[in-house]
């Protein structure tokens, strides 16, 4: 997993609420057995018509946002399925940070496993960032994970909260599995106890 430290980039505005995982990456693209290559199908049914032509007014098709690295989105982003293809598609497109008033739990978790930073902020802050994102390619937002801040192109700064363990993993690009395997003795002893206490499990 790539580290996430600071990011200065173009932010794309997607004010729609309840953007679900079927919108982010429709089911026909879940048939891959790889993690990569999904960026071209990110938001596929919003982004292309049936013949595969780009729909010009969709935000990521507009010249200003084709290289967006941040998404500023409406409430409850990522609701729906557990498909990690959703963050894989975002990452493959080049999105490293999503900002919203709230995220669905599983999507939120999946982001951290892939070096994407989901930031939850109050409505007033998201409104300011959304307006900044609407300014297009000349307005670059800055995200600083170490200091837990997001700043608009005008320098308006917002502080965000993040779970310390997740921050640590993201800053250092750490693999959870390796960390957990160091705790194998605790897992062994839990299993031994449970074999006595709940042998039917």
């Amino acid at each position, binding site marked *: 997993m790539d580290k996430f430290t600071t990011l200065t980039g173009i932010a794309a505005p997607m004010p729609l609420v309840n953007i679900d995982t079927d919108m982010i990456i429709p089911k026909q693209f*879940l048939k891959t057995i790889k993690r990569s290559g999904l960026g071209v199908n990110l938001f596929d049914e919003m982004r292309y018509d049936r013949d595969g032509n780009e729909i010009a007014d969709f935000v990521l098709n507009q010249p200003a946002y084709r290289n967006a690295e941040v998404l500023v989105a409406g409430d409850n982003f990522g609701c729906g399925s557990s498909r990690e293809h959703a963050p894989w598609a975002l990452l493959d497109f080049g999105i490293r940070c999503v900002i919203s008033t709230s995220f669905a739990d599983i999507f939120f978790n999946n982001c951290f496993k892939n070096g994407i930073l989901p930031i939850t902020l109050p409505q007033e802050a998201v409104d300011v960032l959304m307006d900044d994102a609407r300014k297009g390619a000349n307005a670059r937002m800055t995200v600083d994970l170490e200091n837990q801040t997001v700043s608009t192109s005008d320098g308006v700064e917002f502080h965000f909260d993040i779970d310390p363990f997740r921050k640590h993993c993201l800053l250092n690009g750490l693999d959870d599995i390796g960390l*957990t395997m160091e705790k194998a003795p605790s897992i062994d002893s839990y299993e031994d106890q449970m074999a006595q206490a709940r042998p039917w*499990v």
Partner: protein
Amino acid sequence: MTNPATPRTLYDKIWDAHVVDRSDDGTCLLYIDRHLVHEVTSPQAFEGLRMTGRKVRAPERTIAVPDHNVPTTLDRQNGIDNPESRIQVDALDRNAREFGVNYYPVNDIRQGIVHIVGPEQGWTLPGMTVVCGDSHTATHGAFGALAHGIGTSEVEHVLATQTLIQSKSRNMKVEITGRLAPGVTAKDVVLRIIAETGTAGGTGHVIEYCGEAIRNLSMEGRMTICNMAIEGGARAGLIAPDETTFNYVKGRAHAPKGAQWEAAVAWWKTLFSDAEAHWDKVVTIRGEDIEPTVTWGTSPEDALPISARVPAPEDFAGGKIDAARRSLDYMDLKPGTELTDISIDAVFIGSCTNGRIEDLRAAADVLRGRKLANGVRGMVVPGSGLVRAQAEEEGLDQVFLDAGFEWRLAGCSMCLGMNPDQLSPGERCAATSNRNFEGRQGYKGRTHLMSPAMAAAAGVVGHLTDVRQLMAQTV
């Protein structure tokens, strides 16, 4: 860990019983009792194990079954036409055998939707932790098991370590008091709950469903409720185990037997929320107030009683105004239209929400002696091979065939259209599944969620309708 002397919720108790390790910041390493695996969200996880030389730590706790991609037509033993689907199903087959996990291949009669197979085979038991790379894992909460969906990275984590790194969610109680009116089912209850709480209402919470109306539900009805906990945004849904649960579990292939059964039941009986337990959020709904309920839009929260009219965007506030406008446009509906005036083209009965035997019975009861309206196509897809066999033993297959439905083999089918079962653009479907998202059942397909009885009734009259009115007429 919570001090056992302080009152705890059911969620607190199951959580406490599974903590392997706790960090200073409160993050816990939680032991996972059952890991269900299907073909869509697992190939990258098994590949990750191969690349790092890791093994599956507890293959005996891991259960694999293909469901999302499998065709449901009778000729599927001849293989899968779509090359990508075939590759995924073949990959699961290879991974299951190589890593030695429990496995029900496509042609095994026990194959079916993973969330129907787990309970059916007795893998799901009260007080367990159950995960799967699928958001509808919440289904297993009906047994009083802490069950939730995970992403593929976490699938790999569980395969390798049989644990998950978790922070605790908050406790939410949803109480349905009193009794449900005749003709009102578990599906109507859960749609009503989501209409009330919204699709983000449960975010960050584990919901416990309780109250007399929940207690009176069968295990299958309870599974329908918990299945859609995720549609309300909750991490998991739970229903405390009771005699209904124990009776359902007893005698199943992987349920405990003999002295172990007695010991298990003794522990399971301690799994309830203490009277003084703390709730972060409480929602109470009178069971008597719930009507047969359907969705009109493209979010499960867009649910209304069948007696209502299609709302207008201005009926909402904030970002939902634009979302409602987009939904109405996608669904091609005009504000003010009676829901019962919405005509349909297709009926889908099946899915992990409503693909069990009681669901098929409820639909068949409506369809006996009746036929699909002209121009409406219908498909019944049992949730597992065993559900299909049971339905055939009861003669339900003939009821469906006589009514003009197709009678299919088990799989996820048209719930998410990863297989050949899909809606055409513009086609409108009365569906017993769980998501009415744009494109979910097929590109530009339009989904109205409802109970099996309501979907069957819509098929008969050709438009959304109150099943109670149809059933009041003699055939």
